[in-house]
């Protein structure tokens, strides 16, 4: 094995990640090559140096904070479910009822406007009657009464 190839595998050799055959080949090479042995020593030292970076400790409140977040999450989920329940049990039926009522009213208006032939005649009759009623309210000797008398006389002739 060549030095370049061996050096690429030295890390895995050190970590015990090589298959038996590769391990033996590298062992053989290391016996003969001082530079690669030196490289292996550096890699081992590097691991030791890196491991000296101290780990951090968890704060005392860490677990309490987890449980607080969990209960907050539950509350959120509960209020969402609550809203869903209200929507299903109250708002949805009420909404459907309003739509139905509005539909019935609209349909009723629509049908009476378009499919009732007597409507116009009845309206006309009503207005004629109310017009005649208004003549009965004319005060005596008023200009309106004189005018109507003149018309009626004209019609009589």
């Amino acid at each position, binding site marked *: 094995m060549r030095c370049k190839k061996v050096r690429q595998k030295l*890390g895995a050799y050190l970590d015990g990640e090589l298959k038996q055959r590769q391990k033996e080949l590298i062992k053989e090479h290391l016996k003969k090559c001082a530079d690669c042995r030196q490289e292996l020593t*550096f890699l081992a030292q590097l*691991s030791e140096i890196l491991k*000296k970076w101290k780990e*951090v400790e968890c*704060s005392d409140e*860490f677990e309490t904070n987890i449980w607080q977040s969990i209960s907050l999450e539950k509350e959120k989920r509960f209020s969402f479910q609550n809203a869903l329940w209200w929507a299903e049990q109250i708002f949805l039926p009420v909404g459907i009822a309003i739509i139905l009522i509005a539909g019935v009213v609209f349909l009723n208006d629509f049908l009476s406007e378009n499919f009732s032939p007597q409507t116009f005649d009845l309206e006309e009759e009503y207005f004629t009657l109310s017009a005649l009623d208004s003549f009965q309210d004319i005060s005596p000797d008023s200009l309106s009464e004189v005018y109507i008398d003149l018309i009626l006389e004209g019609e009589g002739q």
Partner: protein
Amino acid sequence: MKEKFKNISDTQLMLNFKSGDIPAFEELIKRYKKSVINVIYRFLGDRDEAEDLALEVFLRVYKSVKRYRVEAKFSTWLYKIAVNLSLSELKKRRKHFSISLNAPITTDKGRPRELIDELADPSPSPEKILEEKERNFLIKKAIGLLPPGQRMVIILQIYEGLSYKEISKILGCSVKSVESRLYRARISLKKRLQSYFKK
């Protein structure tokens, strides 16, 4: 409680928790909280942020317990959540600012400090503590300068002692890719931490 769960595997604890056993979840938190916080801390370099994200990791475990199926090791699944959260946090950060080689490294308390501040800590400390602080600072900086993919592989291999296969499952890549990332990461770290090598 420790004794009660002593011989119970993580998977079994998760299954117990799935059927409503809350203390089983508490035990899982106890087992993994330090690892999760430290993986995130070493990746992002900020202790407070690491703790917040670790909290989110356990919250996600809690929320997805109903969907939990024994397909992989519990720890692999947990690390995967931690890694994904760390990577998305890094993406968010990159949108706001880019990392400069001279940028101050944030301390464990979250406040940015320069090396000079670290060394000039007002409390009287022996030489050894100063040396340790300086070394921690330089290792943190050297690892922080690695590309994210290499950084995460180094953290999982060196500090969590995971096998290449486990790392490949967590990161969703091949074992070969893990090996080559580690190789490149080691070359960079060797250059940056040269002063610590005994010749």
